[in-house]
């Protein structure tokens, strides 16, 4: 028996053509631009709003200063760890700026700057990384979900929250942030699919900063771009220069507008670079060379905007100085806040595990209370042995 004789093996065995098939969605409008979208340094910059851009500039300078201060705090042992966003400030800040008060931000562990740009007190934003508590703020009050350390796990939450808001008839958009590495996790795929099927008002912002710790993008995905992934779920994918805050602001605003108007989710890939190591504990020389880092330093988000604005006469020395001064003020307040010893009560360990404390936890709390009292008494006796 030859292969040809197998029933159904070739088209010749089909008596009727298959039923007509058509795609559910036209893929073309969902496909990303072939090149990252840019505004700064292009004719599109003619339509920049000077006031908005000056605000962006001040925020970028403040963001850079925040990064520098947080990194300095790790050297002084005030912060256990800090994942820097130097080079990625435009993504962090644009993400916060495009949201309305009632909207929600779902940051990943690296995105403390986005939370600060949304108005969170810098000291509160760093509580997790300082180590005194896991989340240093009330997410409902701030409309910022807890910084998520397990990667991509916050994305389905963003979808669920946005969906719930819509069910209740509220005007709320959720913007969820994830790294390039995080797009490989199952939770990323499930969140994208839910969002598209439910047409939830969600914006996914992927910061492609080149690496997931040591693993370069080429080992993370074989897709043409991460933005292409969106098409498979049935939502638009946008590719943007993540260092161009004007482009980031425009594309994110558009996606938020679309979501708000009931147009469903968008996935945005911001092409950027992590200038510093993964965290202060990482040795980046093991997996990347200086030349690449230097090339990206020349495409700096602050410099890109500063050049554009000064060339157009929208920013002068005084404006630059004012931004610097404001940043220094924030840094000084952050230093002061972080230098104050956090007031910790070990008995807090047993609070908020359950709405109603269990008997077992009460027992364990009593045990710790006794230990603490005994230690206090020992200390007092040592001081005053009379």
């Amino acid at each position, binding site marked *: 028996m030859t292969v040809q004789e197998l029933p159904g093996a070739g088209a010749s065995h089909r008596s009727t053509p298959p039923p007509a098939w058509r795609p559910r969605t036209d893929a073309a409008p969902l496909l990303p631009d072939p090149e990252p979208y840019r505004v700064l340094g292009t004719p599109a910059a003619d339509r920049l709003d000077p006031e908005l851009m000056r605000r962006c500039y001040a925020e970028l300078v403040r963001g850079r200063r925040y990064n520098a201060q947080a990194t300095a705090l790790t050297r002084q042992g005030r912060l256990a760890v800090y994942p820097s966003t130097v080079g990625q400030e435009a993504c962090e800040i644009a993400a916060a700026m495009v949201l309305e008060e009632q909207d929600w931000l779902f940051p990943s562990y690296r995105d403390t700057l986005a939370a600060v740009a949304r108005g969170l007190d810098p000291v509160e934003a760093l509580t997790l990384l300082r180590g005194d508590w896991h989340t240093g703020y009330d997410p409902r009050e701030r409309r910022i979900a807890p910084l998520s350390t397990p990667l991509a796990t916050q994305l389905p939450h963003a979808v669920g929250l946005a969906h719930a808001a819509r069910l209740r008839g509220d005007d709320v958009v959720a913007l969820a942030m994830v790294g390039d590495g995080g797009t490989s996790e199952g939770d990323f795929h499930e969140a994208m699919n839910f969002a598209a099927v439910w047409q939830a008002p969600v914006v996914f912002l992927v910061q492609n900063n080149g690496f997931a710790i040591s693993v370069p993008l080429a080992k993370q995905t074989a897709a043409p771009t991460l933005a292409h992934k969106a098409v498979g779920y049935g939502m638009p994918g946008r590719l943007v220069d993540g260092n161009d805050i004007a482009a980031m602001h425009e594309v994110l605003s558009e996606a938020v507008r679309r979501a708000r108007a009931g147009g469903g989710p968008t996935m945005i890939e911001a092409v950027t670079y992590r200038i510093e190591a993964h965290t202060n504990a990482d040795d980046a020389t*093991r997996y990347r060379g200086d030349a690449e880092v230097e090339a990206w330093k020349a495409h700096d988000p602050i410099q890109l905007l500063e050049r554009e604005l000064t060339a157009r006469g929208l920013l002068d020395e005084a404006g630059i100085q004012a931004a610097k001064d404001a940043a220094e003020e924030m840094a000084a307040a952050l230093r002061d806040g972080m230098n104050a010893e956090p007031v910790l009560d070990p008995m807090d360990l047993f609070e908020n595990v359950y709405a109603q404390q269990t008997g077992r936890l009460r027992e364990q709390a009593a045990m710790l209370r006794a230990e603490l009292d005994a230690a206090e008494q020992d200390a007092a006796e040592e001081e005053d042995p009379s």
Partner: protein
Amino acid sequence: MTTVAAKPTTTKPATMAQALNRAMRDAMAEDPTVHVMGEDVGALGGVFRITDGLAKEFGEDRCTDTPLAEAGILGAAVGMAMYGLRPVVEMQFDAFAYPAFEQLISHVAKMRNRTRGAMPLPITIRVPYGGGIGGVEHHSDSSEAYYVATPGLTVVTPATVEDAYGLLRASIASDDPVVFLEPKRLYWSKADWSPEAPAAVPGIGEALVRRTGTSATLITYGPSLPVCMEAAEAAREEGWDLEVVDLRSLVPFDEETVVASVRRTGRAVVVHESGGFGGPGAEIAARVTERCFHHLEAPVLRVTGFDIPYPPPMLEKHHLPGVDRILDTVARLQWEN
């Protein structure tokens, strides 16, 4: 017949991290089916450098940086093992293994059983676990209770440099899936050790008496072993001569060594970092009570972490079982008081 001069063995200070690295290197050199994979295990050598140099020595096909997807890593390892390879996968941190639990529980643990032995899965899953390193949330979980509650998994955890090497070699050689729990705060603990001629250690399923004593037995494993050893030293001042049993292997559990020890001493305390309720200590205490009831002078007590989500680093010292808490518990073994 030729006589081979015995190789001089050099013992020098080695860390647990180095012993683990050497175990994988030796296993890979001896057996071409051994493959290491996980997040950042290649150029970086893992975030704890446990796989340092393996990609360089054996190539990226044998020590592979995977995409960032724990379910994918373990699921792919299942397929690789089905095709005759011996995958050794690294989960970067205890809490980041959770996305892989579907694969672990539904497939890894059950493949031998559901195929009536036709399809064993020789996979080693290395999981750095436990606290005491000042990590932020999701970096300090003691997840052993989930693993030991899953039939089909072997669960081991070394506490010494010798065992790190010996137990990892045994795990990779095992025809069953092994969850290999690495006490991350002992990664940099040192011992005099010879990588060229590593001492033979007892295999999986055997506990070791690390210190003999007569007044009570401390039963422990992994990160709590050094704490128990210190507590045993300190207890001498109080007139207690404590025996310390290092379980090394939680599944299978070496009931005989534990039972023999408790029958000798008549008193027992189980010590571990994970929460007490439903923790491994509960099972151990129950087994000891069943087998030693008439030998016991006091109930079997436990010193464990609290039953709370792992605390932030600034408070973890209050949560982790320390020497004082162990000594206080030992004092409670004087039941007549």
